[in-house]
């Protein structure tokens, strides 16, 4: 494919898909190890009422109010989960289950009760996003990357997800040591002065920000898949956390690029006429990578925790 065709039509969706995948996979490593992997799933459910409320308040599909609404809903959910867990003294999974089904139901109720059915706020959009439409019409070829007027026409999702990825990376780089120690041994972490409660909360907030930014660009399917599949596959490639993070990034990139290409050209190769959803194909590829890692990964067998009387 020539630059004249590739840059305007494929470069930006590819980059957005890749950045979104990495931004979710990075915190996903810790969520999977903390057995909180479904929090990505939970977040993508609880943001719905926030998005609908933002729409009701502003009356338009505009990005910033909706992202703020989604972020607000995610924070409300995290606080509610913590409150129910502590006040009810029940396990976190149960508290999460109660909160995210309730909030998703509230979102659907709001969506049905208000006149949002006429606009582009529907289940399909929420699931698959609109990755293919995030094209860069001002570009004429590779030279446009140096052309300021053309760069001004970049889809706003690109700088947004890039900034999110940068923030996620900074957070993990800065708090690498406390994150690792408190994920492995929370009790010990507290005795050396790590504020494990605040740190765990911050991790969930960072994951929520990544989820909301990715959700905005590529839909919730990618969010759910990328929080779990690349980290879980990476875990089966190595027994070192540092290496695991590296593998998870590789798998996220491979999923995004391969998924995007397969969605665009796979059906044609098979004799079909139309392309399929890129987000759906990216999630599918990440699932296939996980399946391969589970079958052939060098560290797929678990030593098992020791039995203690």
């Amino acid at each position, binding site marked *: 494919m020539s630059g004249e065709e590739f840059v305007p039509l494929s470069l930006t969706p590819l980059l957005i898909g890749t950045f979104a995948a990495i931004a979710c996979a990075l915190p996903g490593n810790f969520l999977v190890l903390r057995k909180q992997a479904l929090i990505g799933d939970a977040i993508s459910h609880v943001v719905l009422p926030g998005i609908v409320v933002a729409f009701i308040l502003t009356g338009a599909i505009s990005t910033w109010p909706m992202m703020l609404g989604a972020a607000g809903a995610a924070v409300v959910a995290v606080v509610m989960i913590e409150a129910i867990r502590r006040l009810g003294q029940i396990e976190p999974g149960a508290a999460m289950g109660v909160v995210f089904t309730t909030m998703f139901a509230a979102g659907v109720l709001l969506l049905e009760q208000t006149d949002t059915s006429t606009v582009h706020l529907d289940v399909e959009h929420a699931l698959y996003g609109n990755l293919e439409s995030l094209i860069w019409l001002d570009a004429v070829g590779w030279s446009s990357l140096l052309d300021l007027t053309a760069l001004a026409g970049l889809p706003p999702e690109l700088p947004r997800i890039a900034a999110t990825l940068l923030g996620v990376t900074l957070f993990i780089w800065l708090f690498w040591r406390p994150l690792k120690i408190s994920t492995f041994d929370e009790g010990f972490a507290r005795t050396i002065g790590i504020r494990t409660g605040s740190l765990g909360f911050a991790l969930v907030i960072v994951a929520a920000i990544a989820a909301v930014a990715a959700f905005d660009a590529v839909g919730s399917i990618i969010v759910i898949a990328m929080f779990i599949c690349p980290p879980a596959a990476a875990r089966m490639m190595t027994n070192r956390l540092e*290496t695991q993070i590296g593998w998870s990034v590789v798998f996220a990139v491979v999923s995004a690029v391969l998924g995007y290409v397969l969605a665009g050209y796979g059906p044609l190769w098979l004799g079909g006429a139309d392309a399929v959803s890129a987000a759906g194909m990216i999630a599918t590829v990440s699932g296939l990578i996980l399946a391969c890692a589970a079958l052939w990964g060098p*560290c797929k067998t*678990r030593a098992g925790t020791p*039995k*203690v009387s």
Partner: protein
Amino acid sequence: MTLELAANHGVSVQENGLGSSPLAIRGLTVSYGQKPAVFSVDITVQPGAMTAIIGPNGAGKSTLLKAALGIVPALSGQVTVYGDALEKQRARIAYVPQRASVDWDFPTRVIDVVLMGLSRELGLLGRIRGRHRARAMDCLNRVGMRDFVDRQIGQLSGGQQQRVFLARALAQGADLYLLDEPFAGVDAATEKAIIAVLKALKEAGKTVVVVHHDLATVTDYFDHVFLINTSKVAEGPVEQAFTAETLQAAYGGRLATAQIDQISRALG
């Protein structure tokens, strides 16, 4: 000399009536639900001693340690470490949690776990240098685990895992060592290795507190005991506080089973 030492550590003796004991607790109450797990417990750990915390299952032994260290919240009570607030003296404490409390499938190696003991020193972004590695290796050597340095922790036996945890505590270079059931489910060689390390710490003037469940070894291993059954039952030197009466008071009807265990163990 003693005063000088105390001054060097910035310890103000008798500042709050709890003295400069390595660990002094007053009126500690912890509750997980309706019933308190630990009720109004006082303890004054003797410096340079090896103290066993003993009591029946569910008596609050582990909870007492965890609450003292701020791992679980206490309903009430005052904790001082070397006569000071816990937060100010964290660098002088090393804690070894129960082995079963962590997931040993965590993707990390033996050396990485021991290096966690240096994290206060390293700070957030401090580089791990050769001298840090050398210290970690030395600690592994002291627990006889030098050959396992690059092993994934899940591939170790229970006893080996316990020794790695002890090596991590040694790396912290603390003055007060708190261990939660370090002998639970470990092999005889590990038990011997651990007790040798703990006795060496005591020789070096460190203070050791161990949550312990095996009544048969108390007199061999420890010089002080603290008996608990939700509330404090007895506290003091082994020969005074570890008697038939105090055990009866702590274990009640359950002592019979404990005694039978002891006898059957003695008979092999």
